[in-house]
C-alpha cells in the first residue's frame, strides 16, 4: 500500500491544515475498502497497476483536495462584476492603443522612427500593466465588498424599471439652431482672429502696451485661421444640407487632429530649445515687473498647451469612433429612409 500512502501524502499537501487529518483518514478508509473489495473479487491482492487504476479513478491529488476545500469565494472577480470589469479594461486598452498610435504617427517624422517606435511600444506595456493591475485590484475589492454586504441584492430590491434610460434615437438631421449658432460663433471667432494682429488688446487686455506675442506664433497663425474657416464652412453646409449628420463629427475630428499636429510642433520646439517664450515684453515697455508677468504667462501657456494636447488625444479617439458610427448610420438611412424602431 505504499502507493496509497504516497497518494494520501500528496493530497494532504493541498488540503486546509485544520481538516487534513480528518479528510485523509476518511479518504484512506474509503480507498482501502474499495481496494479490498476488488481484491476479494479477484481472489488475490491487487498489483501496483490495479492500485494505480483505482487512485487514478479518484483523481489527481490537487483535484481531489480542491473538491474538499469549502471556500465560499474562489474567484477574484465574480460573474456580476466581470462584464463591467471587462468593459473598462477594453476601453482603457483602446485608449492606450490610440494614444500609442498617435504618438507613433508623430514619431515617424523624428530622426530615428524605428527606435522611437520601439520605445513607444515598451512605454505602452510599462503603463498598461500597472493600469491593468490597479483596475483588477479595484474591481476585486468592489466584488469582495459587494459579496460581503449583499450590495447586488439591495440594488435589486430598490431597482425601478421606470428609472431605465430612454432609448436615444439617432438624430436624422443636424439641428438648424446648432448650425446657426456655429455660423455666428464661427464668424465672431474668425473676425477676432483676423483682428488680433492689429489689435493686441484683444489678447492681452490692458497689458497690450507692455506685452507682445513671440514670432513663433506667426508660423501657426495661418493654419489656425484655415481651421476656423473650415468650422464655419461646416456650419454653412449643414444649414443647407442638414441631413449630412456625419459632417460635424468628421470636421471636429479633422480639426482636432490638425490642432494636435500644431500643438506637437509647438511643444517639440519648446523642448528642443528648452525655453518657452510665447509672450515677450514689448520693446516700448521695460522693467522686472513685466518680465515677471511674461514669465508667468509663458508657464501658464505651456501647461495649458500640454493639457489640451493630452485631452485632445483622448477626444480624437472617441471622435474617431463617433465618426464611424455616424457614417454607418448615415449609410443605413440612405438605404432605408424610414427610421428603425424597436418592435
Amino acid at each position: 500500500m505504499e502507493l496509497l500512502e504516497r497518494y494520501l501524502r500528496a493530497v494532504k499537501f493541498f488540503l486546509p491544515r485544520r481538516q487534513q487529518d480528518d479528510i485523509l483518514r476518511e479518504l484512506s478508509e474509503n480507498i482501502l475498502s474499495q481496494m479490498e473489495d476488488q481484491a476479494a473479487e479477484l481472489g488475490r491482492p491487487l498489483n501496483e497497476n490495479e492500485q494505480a487504476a483505482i487512485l487514478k479513478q479518484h483523481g489527481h491529488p490537487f483535484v481531489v483536495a480542491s473538491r474538499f476545500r469549502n471556500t465560499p469565494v474562489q474567484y477574484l472577480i465574480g460573474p456580476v462584476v466581470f462584464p463591467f470589469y471587462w468593459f473598462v479594461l477594453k476601453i482603457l486598452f483602446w485608449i492606450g492603443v490610440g494614444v500609442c498610435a498617435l504618438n507613433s504617427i508623430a514619431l515617424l517624422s523624428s530622426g530615428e522612427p524605428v527606435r522611437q517606435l520601439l520605445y513607444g511600444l515598451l512605454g505602452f506595456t510599462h503603463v498598461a500593466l500597472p493600469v491593468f493591475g490597479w483596475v483588477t485590484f479595484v474591481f476585486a475589492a468592489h466584488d469582495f465588498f459587494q459579496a460581503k454586504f449583499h450590495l447586488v441584492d439591495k440594488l435589486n430590491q430598490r431597482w425601478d424599471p421606470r428609472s431605465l434610460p430612454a432609448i436615444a434615437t439617432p438624430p436624422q438631421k443636424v439641428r438648424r439652431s446648432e448650425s446657426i449658432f456655429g455660423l455666428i460663433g464661427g464668424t465672431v471667432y474668425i473676425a477676432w482672429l483676423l483682428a488680433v494682429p492689429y489689435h493686441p488688446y484683444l489678447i492681452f487686455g490692458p497689458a497690450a502696451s507692455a506685452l507682445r506675442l513671440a514670432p513663433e506664433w506667426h508660423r501657426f497663425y495661418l493654419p489656425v485661421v484655415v481651421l476656423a474657416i473650415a468650422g464655419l464652412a461646416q456650419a454653412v453646409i449643414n444649414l443647407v444640407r442638414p441631413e449630412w449628420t456625419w459632417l460635424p463629427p468628421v470636421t471636429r475630428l479633422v480639426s482636432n487632429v490638425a490642432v494636435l499636429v500644431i500643438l506637437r510642433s509647438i511643444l517639440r520646439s519648446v523642448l528642443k530649445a528648452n525655453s518657452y517664450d510665447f509672450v515677450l515684453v514689448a520693446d516700448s515697455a521695460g522693467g522686472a515687473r513685466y518680465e515677471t508677468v511674461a514669465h508667468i504667462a509663458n508657464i501658464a501657456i505651456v501647461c495649458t498647451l500640454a493639457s489640451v494636447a493630452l485631452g485632445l488625444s483622448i477626444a480624437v479617439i472617441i471622435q474617431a469612433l463617433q465618426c464611424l458610427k455616424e457614417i454607418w448610420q448615415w449609410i443605413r438611412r440612405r438605404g432605408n429612409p424610414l427610421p428603425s424602431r424597436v418592435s
Partner: protein
Amino acid sequence: MTSSTSNHDLFENLRLELRRGSLVLAVLAALRKEQYGYTLRKTLGEQGMAIDEGTLYPLLRRLESQGLLISEWREEEKRNKRFYRLSTEGKVILKQLLAEWQSINSSLNGML
C-alpha cells in the same frame, strides 16, 4: 470536432447537469439507513445513481456541515470507518425535496 461529437458532448453536459440536481436527493434518501462512504457509493451505483468518488465524499462533508447528516467514527471489520446518517433536520429537508421533486415530475409528465 465533428457535429456528432459536439452533440454527444452537449448531451453529456446536459445529462450531468440534470443528474447533479438529483444527487443530493439520492444521497439523502440512501442515508435514511446508516452507511459509510464506500458502501454508500456502491449502493447508489446499484440503484442506477452512479456517482464518482470525487463528487460523493466532498458532498457528504458539505451536507454534514449544513446539518443534514450526522457522522460517527466506528470500528467495523477491525477498521475505523466514518458512518453517515440522516439528521432530524435532514429528514425534514428530504421530505420537502421529495415533494418538490414529485411536483416537478408531474409537471414534466403533463408537458411531455
